């Protein structure tokens, strides 16, 4: 049979979603480094014996082989070897739900086959922290902020998102709080503020933390490190952001980022109510 319309492809993938297709087969949504988010049919994936060996579980990191199909046909997953299993569910519900949240976020943020290497590395780093000993609340917040930056949705913090007027440090310091427009996507100057309906007030220290959370953390062009799964922080230095989130600024920042993401996505994520409300709710 001709293989003109199909291509074999091997890559590392994170499992974002599993949907039953038949008794033993699954439709798997995966995040890959070189092909972005893809969906593929895994025939016989529920069987213990076979090319999948029970590796396709939510948030697992696998080395997969797939046949890319043309047109609207689902790619066919032919093999999967487990590299790392997400074990949050064995230890803490908070870590489990944070993992679910990341999976759900990526399903809505990314389009099919939209390659985004930095997002893949960021996700590996975030899952490694959540599944290890990293702080859950800070990791998820840093993950969200870095996603916003990498996808070009970072809220403006230095100029009014309505009129574009530069907001100097001096002006920010004179007012009690800084006003952010959820719909506008950034800080709003005093003149534009009365016309904005969806405003969130943040303290100066919260804005400073937000700016730090949104800053670039270095490049990840070194493809030799992409499968170094035991060194995720080296792939994407997410952990360097975590100490910057203070207890007092976390609730306001979490609230703003959640509302802002909700506005961008046009929906409330199912896992949003499960996010930590305070930085102390570590588990």
């Amino acid at each position, binding site marked *: 049979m001709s293989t003109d319309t199909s291509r074999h492809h091997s890559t590392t993938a994170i499992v974002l979603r599993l949907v039953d297709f*038949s008794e033993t087969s699954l439709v798997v949504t995966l995040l890959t480094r070189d092909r972005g988010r893809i969906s593929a049919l895994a025939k016989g994936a529920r069987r213990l014996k076979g090319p999948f060996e029970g590796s396709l579980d939510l948030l697992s990191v696998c080395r997969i082989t797939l046949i890319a199909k043309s047109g609207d046909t689902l790619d066919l997953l032919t093999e999967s070897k*487990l590299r790392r299993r997400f074990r949050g569910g064995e230890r803490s519900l908070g870590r489990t739900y944070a993992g679910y949240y990341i999976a759900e976020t990526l399903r809505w943020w990314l389009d099919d086959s939209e390659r985004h290497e930095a997002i893949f590395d960021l996700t590996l780093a975030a899952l490694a922290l959540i599944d290890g000993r990293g702080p859950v609340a800070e990791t998820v917040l840093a993950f969200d902020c870095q996603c916003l930056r990498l996808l070009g949705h970072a809220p403006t913090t230095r100029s009014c998102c309505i009129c574009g007027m530069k907001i100097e440090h001096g002006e920010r310091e004179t007012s009690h709080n800084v006003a952010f427009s959820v719909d506008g996507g950034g800080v709003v100057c005093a003149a534009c503020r009365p016309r904005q309906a969806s405003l969130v007030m943040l303290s100066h220290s919260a804005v400073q933390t937000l700016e730090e959370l949104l800053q670039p953390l270095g490049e990840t062009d070194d493809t030799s490190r992409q499968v170094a799964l035991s060194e995720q922080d080296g792939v994407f230095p997410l952990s360097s952001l975590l100490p910057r989130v203070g207890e007092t600024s976390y609730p306001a920042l979490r609230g703003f980022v959640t509302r802002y993401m909700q506005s961008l996505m046009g929906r409330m994520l199912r896992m949003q109510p499960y996010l930590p409300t305070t930085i102390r709710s570590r588990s």
Partner: protein
Amino acid sequence: MSSHAGAVSQLVDRLSQLPGIGRKSAERLAFHLLRVREDEALALSDAIRRVRTDVRYCAACFNLSEKELCQICADPNRDAARLCVVEQPRDLLSLEASGAYKGLYHVLLGRIAPLDGVTPDQLTIDALVERVRTGKFSEIIMATNPTVEGDGTSLYLSNQLSEFPVEITRLARGITAGSVLEYANREIIADALTGRQKL
């Protein structure tokens, strides 16, 4: 477009909607039913009708049953001090087929999967907590599937049951007997090391 007579076509359509049955298999089954004796074919339809009208969930454990209590709950010879929690009735059947467990069961009728909108209140968790509160169990065995969602469900249940004086255990996991370490996945070896037993 189907070339079969209306009734045959309808039967094929119905059969092909069953899990694991494709169009070809459905046609084979339909023609088999046309070939066998009439009473034999009608016995199948009677069995389907009976299972839909007579089978319900056991009032105690939510296993499938034709009476108020299922055979396992009604059996006085079962070990009433042990309770094994499973996701679905078919998981119960798998454990029963092993012949290694003689205690009672509790079927959750699902697992907690907030990503799919399945929350604890949609399962039989309240009934489980009540059962443990009023029962005399010494051990609760978590036999949910060894997946992230299955483990999450077990963890949620163990939190809910932590106030009761019962030992909460879960099924062992790790290397398959008869295999060799050299070819075992490192995650499986990690599981086996974590769950190692005294000799």
